């Protein structure tokens, strides 16, 4: 039963959301070019972290493939950008990533989880090698130039992708399929025994999550003007996605988003102050999070609450 309070809360939340969207949509009007570029990067990281969490969060199947899908998107933009209009390029990048993810999922998700993890670990390296070989053997060039797009368009496209992702992720999470995904993560065989068709569900959600990574890669590529397999297929993007999602916490919907914003902003500052150490610092953050705060930032509040509750029980009255 929804009380007045909860209705007010969700209404208030909705108003805030609309306000935030309006502010973000109009950003190029009042912010500097530098800010727009910065926010674009942050949006990209949010997309990577949230789409990773969409599948790997509830199911517990840890994917290290974001870099592969992101890279596919980048190269799609590089290859098709000259011939096709931007919206179509982005769409195709999403479709390409979707198909790749279906392939990966089809091969590995019917087996024990470890095979999926292992396959995704090397996937980015495999695709990099394939593209490199193709370029050396057939096109004779290394890398490609990407048709540039102005910063504001890049920003708006990224924002659109993010909004679509958030909608998709939210709807899935709140639907019966979100519940089914969670049950798969808890006990996959038991979930199958209560009627959940586990394999197709895993495959589809994994593939849907890849779409947004590919689309984000395609639009981001237009900012870089030159890409080659080493730039496009870099395990660093998988690392950042995973780091941000886990640091933010998988327990709440907005956890990965929170983690992405903080880490992305941190990256901006660290790159200027400690350009040679920031990967080290992030690596330490990931290890520390896994060791000491496995629920991430959103897991902090319940932890504090239970810690204070335990103290209260031990020393009632202070």
């Amino acid at each position, binding site marked *: 039963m929804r009380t007045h309070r909860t209705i007010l809360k969700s209404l208030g939340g909705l108003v805030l959301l609309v306000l935030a969207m309006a502010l973000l949509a109009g950003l190029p009007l009042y912010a500097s070019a530098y800010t727009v570029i910065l926010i674009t990067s942050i949006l990209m990281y949010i997309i990577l972290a949230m789409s990773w969490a969409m599948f790997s969060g509830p199911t517990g199947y840890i994917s290290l493939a974001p870099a592969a899908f992101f890279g596919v998107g980048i190269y799609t933009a590089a290859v098709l950008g000259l011939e096709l209009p931007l919206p179509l390029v982005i769409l195709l990048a999403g479709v390409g990533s979707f198909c790749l993810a279906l392939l990966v999922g089809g091969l590995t998700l019917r087996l024990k989880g470890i095979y999926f993890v292992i396959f995704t670990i090397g996937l980015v390296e495999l695709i990099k090698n394939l593209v490199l070989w193709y370029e050396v053997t057939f096109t004779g060039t290394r890398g490609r130039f990407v048709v540039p797009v102005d910063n504001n368009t890049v920003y708006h496209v990224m924002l659109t992708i993010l909004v679509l992702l958030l909608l998709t992720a939210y709807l899935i999470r709140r639907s*019966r399929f979100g*519940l*089914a995904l*969670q*049950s798969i993560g*808890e*006990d996959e*065989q*038991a*979930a*199958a*025994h*209560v*009627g*959940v*068709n*586990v394999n197709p569900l895993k495959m589809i959600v994994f593939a849907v999550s890849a779409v947004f990574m590919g689309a984000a890669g395609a639009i981001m590529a237009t900012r870089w003007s030159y890409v080659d397999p080493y730039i496009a297929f870099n395990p660093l993007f998988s690392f950042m996605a995973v780091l941000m999602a886990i640091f933010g916490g998988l327990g709440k919907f907005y956890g990965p988003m929170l983690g992405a914003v903080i880490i992305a902003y941190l990256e901006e500052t660290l790159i200027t102050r400690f350009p040679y150490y920031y990967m080290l610092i992030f690596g330490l953050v990931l290890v520390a999070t896994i060791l000491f705060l496995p629920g991430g930032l959103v897991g902090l509040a319940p932890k504090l609450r239970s810690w204070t509750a335990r103290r209260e029980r031990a020393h009632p009255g202070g």
Partner: protein
Amino acid sequence: MHILEGNAVTKHFGGLAAVSHVDFAVDPGQVVGLIGPNGAGKTTLFNLISGALVPESGTIRFQEAAITGLKPHLICRKGLARTFQSVRIFPHLSAHANVQVAALFGRTDRRSVAEANQETVELLEFVGLSGLESLPAKDLKLPSQKRLEVARALATQPQLLLLDELMAGLNPTEVAGAMDLVYRIRDRGVTLFLIEHVMKAIMSVCDRIMVLHHGEKIAEGTPQEIATSRAVVDVYLGE
């Protein structure tokens, strides 16, 4: 018509025959027991029936249709549900969510979330867990977890329910409660096939009993016949 029947069902693990040429039949409305010493192959047989394992040879038919080798979710949707020996509830989901997911996915007809919710509440009440819906399943005590697993299985609206050691780990009061639950499930029209070690319970609750030993069926009959069967007594005393 048998609601469940199996012919020469066989499964090996490595060189060992876990289940060897076992025939079985369950009639609708019955409560059939499956007993045998530890390692006799009882849970393996349940796994073969529910689709968790695929038999090497033999056939299994449910409601006249072959289900051998079907995936578990399809068998569930046909109306065959089970619980597990080691209580495999979804630990971090609430009790309500545990049952709700089964209500949403366990049937061939699609239910709305509202309908599933309604069913969930009813089933939790049926098993006596009202008031505990929002607790994460891992925070429930063992007897409650077992009831939750039963409620979850019932949410798929089965015609046949396989219960694997429902009474294991329960004290005598709880065993009595579990037996009462079994009767009430039968009264709902669900056929029951139970694995049990608590002899007193299974003797009083079952219409027929099957005995497995080293993967083979060694006896079958009414509780009376089983209790006096030489073969069965030997197997149990010889342990």
